[in-house]
């Protein structure tokens, strides 16, 4: 259960953004990706999750062990918190949504429709979803956006528990996640494509 990335290039809209990205992650490790706006963090995470094409290089990971959580939380506004969470639990073949609810204080919101949640409550529900997937490699794009300090602590606790149980996580963020020394930090600026080459499919035209 590892994630190894070697010499990876990722591209968006026919421009290579990052080149030669290298890192590897094993059980019990967390990695924080940093870099200025527009560098390609979101693109990299989507590529790792298999939602975008790999330009060149390799990502070796078992797809059935990963789960992705992006900017949008995929919350249905007419389903209640419970229904939203239970749906994902069923899809991923897990049963119990109790721990996930508890981890983010969602119990009192359980019958509220998704559309009536505040920004932070939505995000908490989105994070709780991770726990019911039962997957071990988490890929998170700016997970703590809109969270208050208490919820950020809960998030850090969840991550610590997850890596304590042998899971791992890759997260992109601009702010402090409250993880302290539990997570390594990788600055992606070093991989910025120097001579921004066109995407491989465009290259054929040169």
């Amino acid at each position, binding site marked *: 259960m590892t994630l190894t990335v070697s010499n990876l290039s990722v591209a968006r809209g*026919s421009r290579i953004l990052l080149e030669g990205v290298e890192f590897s992650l094993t059980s019990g490790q967390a990695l924080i990706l940093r870099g200025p706006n527009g560098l390609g963090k979101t693109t990299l995470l989507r590529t790792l999750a298999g939602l975008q094409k790999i330009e060149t290089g390799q990502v070796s990971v078992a797809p059935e062990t990963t789960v992705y959580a992006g900017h949008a939380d995929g919350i249905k506004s007419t389903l209640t918190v419970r229904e939203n969470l239970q749906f994902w639990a069923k899809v991923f073949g897990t049963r119990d949504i109790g721990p996930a609810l508890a981890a983010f204080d969602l119990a009192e919101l359980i019958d509220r429709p998704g559309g009536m949640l505040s920004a932070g409550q939505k995000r908490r529900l989105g994070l709780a979803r991770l726990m019911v997937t039962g997957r071990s490699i988490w890929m998170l794009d700016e997970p703590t956006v809109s969270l208050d300090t208490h919820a950020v602590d809960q998030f850090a606790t969840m991550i610590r528990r997850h890596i304590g149980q042998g899971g791992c996580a890759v997260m992109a963020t601009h702010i402090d996640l409250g993880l302290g020394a539990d997570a390594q930090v990788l600055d992606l600026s070093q991989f910025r494509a120097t001579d921004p080459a066109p995407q491989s*499919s*465009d290259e054929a*035209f*040169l």
Partner: protein
Amino acid sequence: MSLWQYANPVKFLNLSGKVLPTLSVLTVICLVTGMYWGYFLTPDDYKQGSTVKIIYIHVPSALIAINAWFMMLVAALIWLIRRHHVSALAAKAASHVGVVMTLIALITGAFWGQPMWGTWWAWDPRLTSFLILFLFYLGYIALWSAIEDPDTAADLTSVLCIVGSVFAVLSRYAVNFWNQGLHQGATLSLDKEENISDVFYFPLLFCIAGFVLLFLVLTLVGTRAEIRNRRARALVAREKG
């Protein structure tokens, strides 16, 4: 070296650049000969009068309209299987020529129908399936233009082209069935081919050859333009970073 080497855009540009002038000249010769012969050197038909001469545009354009779709189908398969960019772009270019040819066939047909049948349009199976083909072209082109990423657009339009072809064949059958049910025997379409005398036949051949060449030339030009576009895009991407 295999034929596939010309699937490289740059090689394709070079090669097509070389053949284009010759092809263009041939096109002009065929079209001018066919048209001049057809319009000025043949007598009027004894039944149809001078309107018969629409045939020199109508039939070739109808032929091309159908075969352009076939070409697109082949190109779509090549793109999906071998992922040669030129074939995807050639399909796109051919669709533009094809839709115009379909339109020409429809319009000339309508202008022919007015004197011959007393109506611009009838829901004859042949005409109807042509109208459906026109819709397929429109959808195909709209899909190309709606998607930004060129590779994604090529993939999606290729699948659409394949699925669409199956449905086009099915509609053709359906339309035949549908119209016979109502117009027992009394179909409006002329008895073609057999009626046509040699006087009209040979100039028509020239016109058809001319339109085929015209299609080739326009498609080549279109493909070259698309390739240049992509090239420019690639260069801009490299420059800007």
